[in-house]
């Protein structure tokens, strides 16, 4: 079940992109999500992510991410709506609460909370897309050019994590057979029984680490300067995707300067789209950011196109 949350090679277009190109693209999406405050622009970003996640065949996993996101978003909306005092359009006035004062809900506070929730969904979706399309080893290979030891530690940690999860489950079963109860008891008792698990896991990991170190030593690790095995090629598709993202970023900076992508929530809601330029700006940003999704669509349907990019 959990493997759906991690990268799985499906031979997709987005998975074939150069790690530098896809990482830059995702970084730009993240920056724009934090930059934009205009709900329409945020929805535009979410639309781009929906297209990409669909191209990455990750709809099912994304649904789970959204459910988790909703768990965070609902309390944000409720608490912000109840506590924010900046809005002038009061739609509900409640009782007086000691310390907090009179509870009121304004239209502005609800809209602000909703926009922040969309931003949260965007960030979660970027994370989801990253897991769907970026092979962790490729990122580490990219990183190893600049920080080889850090990359190696990360690689080892990534590799050992699934086996440690498996080992943890095995230890838990062994302890259950020996009468350790993980289900019942108070918090202290549960912590105590789980401490046994961690204890065994640490003991075994320490022993294992010596063997891994020996195997690395036998393969000349630490015997002198290392070279870096870079097997990724930069293709036209990487240039198109990165180019689209850079153009979108440029337009976003313009939109930020001109105020198209910003929005006044308090004290009263401002205008969503100030003029036609704001609309065109948004459309072009969405189009440029959709280049990977569009290329992915063409890649699946047209072998000629496939060969050319």
């Amino acid at each position: 079940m959990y493997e759906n949350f991690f990268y799985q090679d499906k031979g997709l277009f987005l998975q074939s992109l150069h790690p530098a190109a896809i990482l830059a693209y995702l970084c730009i999406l993240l920056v724009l999500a934090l930059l934009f405050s205009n709900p329409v622009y945020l929805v535009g970003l979410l639309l781009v992510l929906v297209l990409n996640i669909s191209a990455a065949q990750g709809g099912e996993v994304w649904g789970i991410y959204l459910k988790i996101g909703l768990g965070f978003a609902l309390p944000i909306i409720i608490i912000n709506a109840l506590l924010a005092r900046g809005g002038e359009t009061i739609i509900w006035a409640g009782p007086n609460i000691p310390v907090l004062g009179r509870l009121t809900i304004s239209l502005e506070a609800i809209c602000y909370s909703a926009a922040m929730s969309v931003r949260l969904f965007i960030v979660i979706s970027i994370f989801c897309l990253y897991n769907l399309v970026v092979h962790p080893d490729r990122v580490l290979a990219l990183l190893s050019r600049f920080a080889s030891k850090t990359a190696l530690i990360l690689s080892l940690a990534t590799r050992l994590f699934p086996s440690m999860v498996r080992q943890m489950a095995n230890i838990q079963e062994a302890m259950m057979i020996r009468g350790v109860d993980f289900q019942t008891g108070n918090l202290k008792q549960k912590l105590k029984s789980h401490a046994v698990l961690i204890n065994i896991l640490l003991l075994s990991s320490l022993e294992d680490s010596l063997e891994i170190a020996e195997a690395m030593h036998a393969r000349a690790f630490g015997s002198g300067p290392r070279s870096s095995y870079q097997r990724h090629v930069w293709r036209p598709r990487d240039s198109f995707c990165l180019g689209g993202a850079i153009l979108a970023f440029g337009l976003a900076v313009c939109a930020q300067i001109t105020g198209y992508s910003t929005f006044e929530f308090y004290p009263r809601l401002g205008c969503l789209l100030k003029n036609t330029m704001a609309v065109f700006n948004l459309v072009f940003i969405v189009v440029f950011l959709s280049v990977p999704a569009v290329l992915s669509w063409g890649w699946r349907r047209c072998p000629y196109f496939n060969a050319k990019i």
Partner: protein
Amino acid sequence: MPVFQCEDLTYFYSEREKPALKSINLHVEEGDFLLITGGSGSGKSSLARALAGLIPYFYGGRLRGRVYFDGRDVSQIDRRLMAREVGMVFQDPEKQLVMTSVEAEVAFGLENLGLPREEMVRRVAEALSFLDLAGLREEFTAHLSGGQKQKLALAAVLAMQPRVLILDEPTSQLDPVASEEFLNLVKRLNEEMGLTIILIEQRLERCFHLADRVVFMEDGQIRYDGTPGQLASWAAARDIPFIPPVASFFARNNFATIPVTVKEGRRLLRQNFRYCKTPPVRPVEKKDTGKPVLVMDNVWFAYPGGREALQDINLRIFPGELAAVLGNNGAGKSTLLKTMAGLLKPTRGRLMLDGRDLNSEKRFVPGRVAYLSQNPNDYLFQETVEEELHFTLKNFGLTDDGVVNEYLEKLELIACRKANPRDLSSGERQRAALASILVTRPRVLVLDEPTRGMDGRLKDELGKILSGLCREGASVVLVTHDVEFAAVHATRVLMMFAGRLVADGPKKEVLGSSYFYTTQIGKMCRGFADGVLTLADALASLELLWPNRKQKGEARFIT
């Protein structure tokens, strides 16, 4: 000039008084296939590490004498050059893979050597193609099977283009099919590429015949160094179990030429026994008696992903039975054991223990079926062995009525009762973990591959302990890939395939009629004396054919 030469090599691990290697004198010629065998703790792995230069550089300790590689003292050779010339594959594939993907793993050693990119790309491609791993280039190493992982470890070493390949029990964690494939690859490397191979092994059925020379080690010393046939004669005369059963059979019967394969063994049998009309030996099997202690009726189990690991299992386990479950990886053997132990709940069907329906219980109730997983380390964390047993008793709210001493004695752990279980040898760890689950006196004991990585003597000790428990009325069910162990110690054999039980019966019936899942002796005797599975059976059959042959001096066979 030999590729390796050891001169009076003695080595002590740090803070150890007893030497791991004692006055070793050995030479290995270029292109040799050398097999080093011996029991656990005999010094095999230490010798391999000394040859690879890991001793003393990685382990520290004290070393006397010299190890020469190509006439140069290993201690004077640059580590990078040594790693390039001498590749080493270790026992556990899980503990030698570093990177997350297959391709990156193969490139890891090349990066350490500082090779240019173009050279690395070519070598990675060659190594992956040679070992038929090219299709898995982008695969996560965590997703590979045990056999694939070990092949990957070999590919990663081969990419460094070594002249010598040292393999330290590379098949101990693999199933028989993967082991066979791996050893065939190693043989190809020796024959087609001329690589010098030094193989450390204690399960000899599959590799004895591959070697040009066999070295037998005991107590840190080389006891014998000769051809496989010579070693077989020498070991058989001294009752040393480190020879394959076929070789042992002929050596014990004074054949001048000792065959080391089933094919050669059958040829000798044909020459000597063709006119034999004596009926095959079929010892009487004990029938199932009494009320079953564990009943599985139409049991199904499906994992959350939907994979049906158990399909319609119908099984009755009787008191005093030692049942061995055989089958390929993924057949559902471990799932069967966990279901018996109550760790997994059947998705359909009925599981009864002592007449009580376990399906009706909402939560796992421990103490009724003891389960020992593949890794005894999962059980051990206390300061002493004795405390491990007390820990289990305490969890069940039981007091020590002498049960701790009883099981320490039964499992021969009295001497190390105050020792830290993590400091024990592999066999002792296994017994300590076993004792920790037996103190509740369960009626059923289930074990998952308990003989993995054990030498012949330790396996025999374990077999005797389990048989002893059965004689006292306990039922033992164990999963194993070790057909030889099952043939000697089990009373009943179950075979699984794709989640189903495909065979179930007395061992002679199941193993005797199986074409692939049978012992080396069973394969050799097929057609001559059906139902003969073990060395003891074969020797008994011979005694029936030629009674008193030794006294009459008739031990003259055509060879």
